[in-house]
Every structure is written in structure tokens, then in C-alpha cells.
């Protein structure tokens, strides 16, 4: 009997699973954001949702240190603060990437960049970033012409379009250049309004009217994002069709948006964070292009503007707000 018991014990030891002891240290992620106003940040919410889908729940399995700067000058300061904590990964969407790049080359950084990350010096190549940074690009250059084309499809009479853009945004010059090239093909004159503050936007509104702008194209950046409702309301008041890069602009009353799906993009960024937390090196993680592009049309805005959206556009739209 003793022998049988011993054999049974050996059998259990030989076949039983071995459970690792759970680590008590939670991974820590710093989220860096440039937020001129206290308006809600849809991208951050989408990012958190992305982490949740991958099993990272704030406070339980991960700690997200959210830091927002109301002006670019403070970004470096709060980035340094994140590095001191320290955090395992810094997430730096949009313009915040430059502050992160300036502060540390040791902490992995995940970006969501609208420009060309190779040209901006963030990565060596899209396939092999090579440094401490990686992330997703937002097809800003490629989509600039498409947005103007969609605007022209919606309002074929257009010939003068106002462009709101932050001059300090790293991707702004190339995006403006691409937009101008498309405008030339479409027979459109661009009215460029560089804006750095909300006051600049107010000033730009007045200048647009003076210059008889027939539509508004706002580059997607933190400032236009924060002022998306003001821009939409101004355009409605002035009966100007608008086109943007992100859906939240249309949700706020804009007419059209065409660009990467925000939720998808931020979930991809969450995916990068997860892989880095599991040991992947940013240098080996290729920069991804968004796969899903969405066309969103606000039909209520169109009606208020008295614009009849072509049927083929409605057919092509991924979302129509009625």
C-alpha cells in the first residue's frame, strides 16, 4: 500500500501543473496629453478601452498616470515627472511626442503621429524603428487631399477653402503642402489660417468671413480638437461646410470627417503598450498604418446648411448622423 501511495504521489507530481506566483508590482503607464481646455478627451477613453480589452484594468492590473499640459511649454516638465515616477511606457499622442523625445531616450514611447515619423526623426524606418519609440501613423499626408476631394464632392461649387492649422504641429507643413497640391488639382484656392490659441481661432473666424471663405478644413491637432464645437458652431452660423480628420469633430456639429477610426487607432496604441509591457522592444515593433478609415457625415448639419449630400457619398459613408 505504501508503494502504491508513493507511486500515486509521483504521478501527481509528474502531471500536476506548476503555478507561478503572481507579481505584486503593477505595470505603470504614463499618458501625456496636450489639452488646452477641460473638454473630454475621446482618444484617452478609447485608449483605456483598448487596454481593458487586453486585460489591463486601471488600478487593478495596471496604473495609468494621466498628465495633461494646457500649453506645449509645460509638456517637458510633466514628461520629466513621468520619467521620475518612473513609468514603464509613455504614451504620447499628437504633438506631445516631441516633449517625450526630448526628455528621455530610455523609456519606451508609443506615439500616434499624424505626420511622417521617419521625416520627423522619431524612427529610423517604419519597418524597424530602431530607437525607444514606435506607434501608429495617421495617414495625415495621404488623407489631406482626400478630405478636400470629399468636400468638393459634397459642395461642387467650392473654390475658396479656409484651412485652420497649428503652425507648431510637427506634421503641419507637409500636410499643408499635400493639401495645397490636392487643391490645385481640384481648382480650389486655399486660405491658410495658422492658429496657436483659442483666441487665434476666434480671430481666424472673422478673417474667413472677410476673405469670403466658402468652407473650412481644420487639420487634426490638439487645438482644433479642443475647439471643435466652436468651429462647428461658427461654420453653421456662417453656413460654411466643414471637413475634419476625426469623427469627434462631426459629432460636435461638423459636416464631414474622413480619417482613421479613433477607437481603432487608440486600441492599436494600447496594443503597443501591452506588447512593450510583455518585453518587446520598441525598436523591433514596426510603425503601423491605420487599416480602418471612416467617412462620417452629419446629415443634420448638411440640412441646416442646405446642402444635399450626393447619394454615392451617403453610400460610401461609414456613419451618417441624421
Amino acid at each position: 500500500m505504501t508503494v502504491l501511495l508513493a507511486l500515486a504521489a509521483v504521478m501527481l507530481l509528474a502531471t500536476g501543473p506548476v503555478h507561478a506566483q503572481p507579481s505584486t508590482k503593477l505595470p505603470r503607464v504614463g499618458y501625456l496629453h496636450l489639452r488646452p481646455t477641460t473638454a473630454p478627451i475621446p482618444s484617452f477613453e478609447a485608449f483605456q478601452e483598448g487596454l481593458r480589452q487586453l486585460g489591463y484594468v486601471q488600478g487593478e492590473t495596471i496604473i495609468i498616470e494621466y498628465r495633461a499640459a494646457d500649453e506645449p511649454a509645460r509638456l517637458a516638465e510633466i514628461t520629466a515627472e513621468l520619467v521620475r515616477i518612473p513609468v514603464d511606457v509613455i504614451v504620447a499622442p499628437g504633438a506631445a511626442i516631441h516633449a517625450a523625445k526630448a526628455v528621455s531616450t530610455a523609456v519606451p514611447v508609443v506615439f500616434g503621429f499624424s505626420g511622417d515619423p521617419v521625416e520627423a526623426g522619431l524612427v529610423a524606418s517604419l519597418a524597424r524603428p530602431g530607437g525607444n519609440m514606435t506607434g501608429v501613423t495617421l495617414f495625415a499626408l495621404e488623407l489631406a487631399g482626400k478630405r478636400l476631394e470629399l468636400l468638393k464632392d459634397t459642395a461642387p461649387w467650392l473654390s475658396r477653402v479656409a484651412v485652420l492649422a497649428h503652425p507648431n504641429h510637427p506634421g503641419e507643413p507637409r500636410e499643408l503642402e499635400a493639401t495645397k497640391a490636392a487643391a490645385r488639382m481640384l481648382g480650389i484656392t486655399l486660405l491658410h489660417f495658422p492658429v496657436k490659441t483659442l483666441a487665434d481661432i476666434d480671430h481666424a473666424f472673422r478673417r474667413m468671413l472677410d476673405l469670403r471663405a466658402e468652407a473650412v478644413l481644420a487639420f487634426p491637432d490638439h487645438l482644433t480638437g479642443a475647439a471643435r464645437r466652436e468651429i462647428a458652431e461658427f461654420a453653421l452660423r456662417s453656413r460654411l461646410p466643414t471637413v475634419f480628420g476625426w469623427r469627434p469633430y462631426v459629432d460636435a456639429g461638423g459636416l464631414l470627417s474622413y480619417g482613421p477610426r479613433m477607437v481603432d487607432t487608440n486600441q492599436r496604441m494600447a496594443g503597443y503598450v501591452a506588447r512593450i509591457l510583455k518585453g518587446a522592444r520598441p525598436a523591433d515593433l514596426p510603425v503601423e498604418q491605420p487599416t480602418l478609415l471612416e467617412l462620417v457625415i452629419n446629415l443634420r448639419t448638411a440640412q441646416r446648411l442646405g446642402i444635399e449630400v450626393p447619394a454615392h457619398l451617403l453610400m460610401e459613408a461609414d456613419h451618417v448622423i441624421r
Partner: protein
Amino acid sequence: MLVCGGLVASGLVELYFRYHESWEQLAVLQREITAAAAFKVERFVREIEANLRAAARNRALTEHGLTPDYRFELRRLLTVARPITEAVAVDAHGREQARASRFGAELPLDRGLNNGPAALARALAGRSYFGPVYFAWGSEPYMTVAVPIERFPGEVIGVLRAQVNLKYVWDVVAGLTIGSGGQAYAAARRGALVAHPEITLVLQQRDVAGLEQFKAAFNPDAPRRAPLVASSLDGTRVVTTSTLIPDLDWAVFVEQPLDAVYRPLYASLARTAILVLVGLAVALLAGLVVTRRVVRPLETLKEGVERIGRGDLAFRIELGTGDELEALADEVNGMAAGLEDARAGLERKVRERTAQLLAANEKLEELDRLKSEFVSNVSHELRTPLTAIQGAADNMRDGLTGALTEKQARYLMRIKSNTDRLARLIEDLLNLSRLEAGKLDLRRTQVSLAELAGEVTDSLRPVALEKRIALHVVCDDAPVTAWVDRDRVAQVLVNLIGNALKFTPVDGQVTISVRADGENARVSIADTGSGIPPDEADRIFERFYQGRGSAREKTSGTGLGLTICKALVERHGGTISLESRPGIGSTFSVTLPAGSQPGRAVLRALDQR
């Protein structure tokens, strides 16, 4: 040991066959998974092709031909087929007629990619074109698919060319569940990774052309059915199978880590080994039990049977096993008990019979003693009156009673003859009774037998002369002596030679031989008489036995002579024997102790007989 060996052998055989069966099952399963994966990957491209074919055969084309308005159909195509990033329609001369792109009109993705003429030529021939894999923006995998644009069935008026984002194939390969840690991926002939669950590898443009499984997949001579053990992209040893998609010139691979493949086999191996160990332990325990329950009792049984077999019939085998062996032991015990009883009965009977025989013997000895005593007494009592008769008769013959008439003299002669004979008979009876009673004392001396034989012969020579019988004594040159009572031996020789002369006819021959015979001396008396039949030879030394036949009937004897001879010779420690051949003659041989005075002990023993 036999059982243990059997268990180990069966365990090893089981492991061998299980290994091969598992490997075969894995091969079959993995081939099926690979075929399914290849089917899904190809279906992804075929669906794109189907979408393109549908767009290239619509009513607007039939009605208006290929015009710039066809771009609306192309934009509709982009909404239907998400992997298509850009679609371009060209006429039969290759001139662009319509274009739709997710990125705007000025950014054709295949700019600089020289697949336009090839796609055009193939599609204009009415067939679908699947271009090589290329990477846009340095990391995104794309391919060109082109189909003919037909106004009417068979009337090709242009070509619809689409750029397809192959990142969407990720959904296909990532959705496949392949064992534990297994994965499926697709690669093009030039080595470009088209689809992989780890999209990073695709975006890094990892070249898989160096992998052993890749070379085998595109090698037409390589065996297709057997799984290959090779290194994966990350260096892990994997079991890999592949299937070609000829139209795309892609191969789809399905790989499982060797560890994961072997894990169930190792687990099975461990289980079998443990079972064998358990079996061995059980066999050992069973062996011990068998030893205790069977072998030990068998040994006890064997020892018990041997002990009983040696004669210890009182021994009983105690097993207490409560089984057939105990029943067998009980049977053996029963047999031993039976044998013991039988032997006890036999011994009792032997004792009883022995006692009966002893009693009968004693009675016979008593009777014999009484008979001898009676004979002795009677003889003694007879001799006294007989001596008186003889004396009286002699006196009368001597004339003391006056002269006798012839008739009286004849009667007296007859009386004398019969009283002499009666006296000899009585003398013989007395001698015999003394011999049998052991009362005859021998006066031994060293006697020369040749000399004694000569003396006896000489005394009987008148009888021989009377019957003209040749009487000889033959002796060894060396003196033959015996330690005997001279008178008694002489009595024996007289009797034997007398008998020979008596039963040998006229002109016969009697020869007396005296020779040394080892430690004995031998005296033989051979005659040329009528011989004695064999059936009488055994009885010739019995008392009062007288042979049949005419010669015997003519002689007058007491019938005690040979009996006395035998008793006298045996009293000396010798033997007497007869060899006779009827019609030729008889030879009586007497052996006697030779040489000088024997040891006192021997002598005493002989004298006490």
C-alpha cells in the same frame, strides 16, 4: 521476474506504437489544418477577385462603356471590399479612365511598380491577374489584382486593377486555432511574409526564403505529405507542413512547436512508465503473496512428504492456507495415517506369528529332545537284554550247554546274526541321539587323512576282493592333514567306503581321493555303482531313508549310516555332498578343516555346535 519482464516489454512496445500513431495522427491533422488554412487564405483573395469581377460587369458598362463616371462604381467597390485601397480602370490601350482611392486621386499606390503591363496583358486575355507582394510605405504588404472589364460577356474593353492591403489576411491566419502554440502563416515565392499572426513580422518585411520549410514548400521534388521538423522564424524547433496556392504563388505553412507536439507524447510516455512501475510493484507484491501463499506451502508440503517417505509416518503436515494445498496436505496426512495403521497392524501380526512359530519350535524341540531321550533310553534298555541274549547264544554256540544239532546251530547262527544287527542298530541310534543332543565329545588330533584312508581301505579290502572290486587310494604328494577326531572320521570313511563297496557290482571300481582344498581337506569316495537318481540324492542323508532299486533292497542297513556321517562331519565343521550319475556311479565328498590345531575360539565354537 517473468511477469516483470512481460510488463516492461509490453510497455516498451506500447510506447513504440503510441509514438508512431501519435506522429501519424499529427501528420494527418496538420495536413488537414494546412489545407484548411490555405483554403481560407486563398478564399480571401478569391473574394476580392469576385468583388472585382462583379464591378467589371455591371449594367452601366453595358449601356455606356468605360467612362469617367465608372469611378462611382469603383468607389462603391471600395465600400464593399475594405482590403482594396485603390482601384483603377484602364481601357484596352492602358489609358486610365477612372480611379477611386481611399487616399485621394493623386496618390496611386502602385506608382513605380512595374506590374501594369503584365496585369494589363493577362486581364485583357480574359484571365485574372495576381501580382507579386510589395510593401507600401516601407512596411504595409500589398498586392495587385486585375480582372478584365467586359461590356458583354467575352468582350473585354479594359482592365480593372486594384491594390489590395494584405494586412487583412491577418484576420484569417490569426483566427486559426492550431494546437498549443501553433500558428499558420503565408509567404510568397520570393520569401516575403504575406500574413502571420504576429503582424509585426509582416511589417518588418521578414524574409523567410532561408527557412528549410520554405525551400521544401517551393521545391517541386520535396515530399509533401510528411511533416518537417525545422526552425521557425524565431528559432523555435517546430513541426511544419505546407500547402501551395498555385494561382497566387504563395505557400501556407502550419507550424506547431516541437515541445507542444511532444508534450502529450511525453505525458503518455510518463503515464505508461508509471503504469509499468505500478504493474511491476503489483507483480512484486503478487510474487511475494504467491511465495507466501503457494511456494512456501509447497515447500512445506514437499519437506513433509519427504519426511513421511523416509518412514516418519507419525509426522503430520500443517499448512493452514485454507486452499487446495491444505486439502492436498490433509490427503497426504490421511495417507500417512493409513500407512502407519497398516504398518502397526503388520508388525503386530509379525509379532504374533513369530511368537506362534517360537512356541511351535520350542514344542518341536521339546518333542525332538523327548524323542532323542526316548530313543536313548530305549536303546539303552534294549542293549542290556540284547547283550544277555548274545551272551547266552554265544555260550550255547561255544558248547557250554552241550552239543548242538545242526538245526540248533543254524538257529543259533541266525540268532547271532540278528542280535549283531540289532546291536549295531542300537549303537547307531545311540550315536545319533548323542550327536543330535550335542553330547558327543570329539577328541581332536592332527590326523593324516591319507594314512587314515589307507587304514580304512585296508580293513575293507577283503570285501573288495570278494566282489573283485578294484579299490584304490589316490593322495597328493604333500601330506593332507586335518584337525579331527580320528575315530569318528574313520567311522565316516568306513561307512562311505563300505556303502561304495556294497552298491558297486562285481568287477567294479572304488577310488578314494585325498586332497588339500584351500583351507580344507577333501576326501572323495567314487564308485562305479548304479548311481542314485537326482530325486533321491536330496533325501539320501535323511534318517532311515533307504534308496529304492534292486541293489538297495538286497542290502541290509539301518538307514542311519549317512545321517550319522553327515552329523559327524558337520560336527567337525565340515561338509558332505553327493554327486551321482545313474548308471555310471556316485561320488561322496567330505571336506574337513585342514592343517594343525585351529584357534581355541574356533575350536570352542565348533565343539559347541
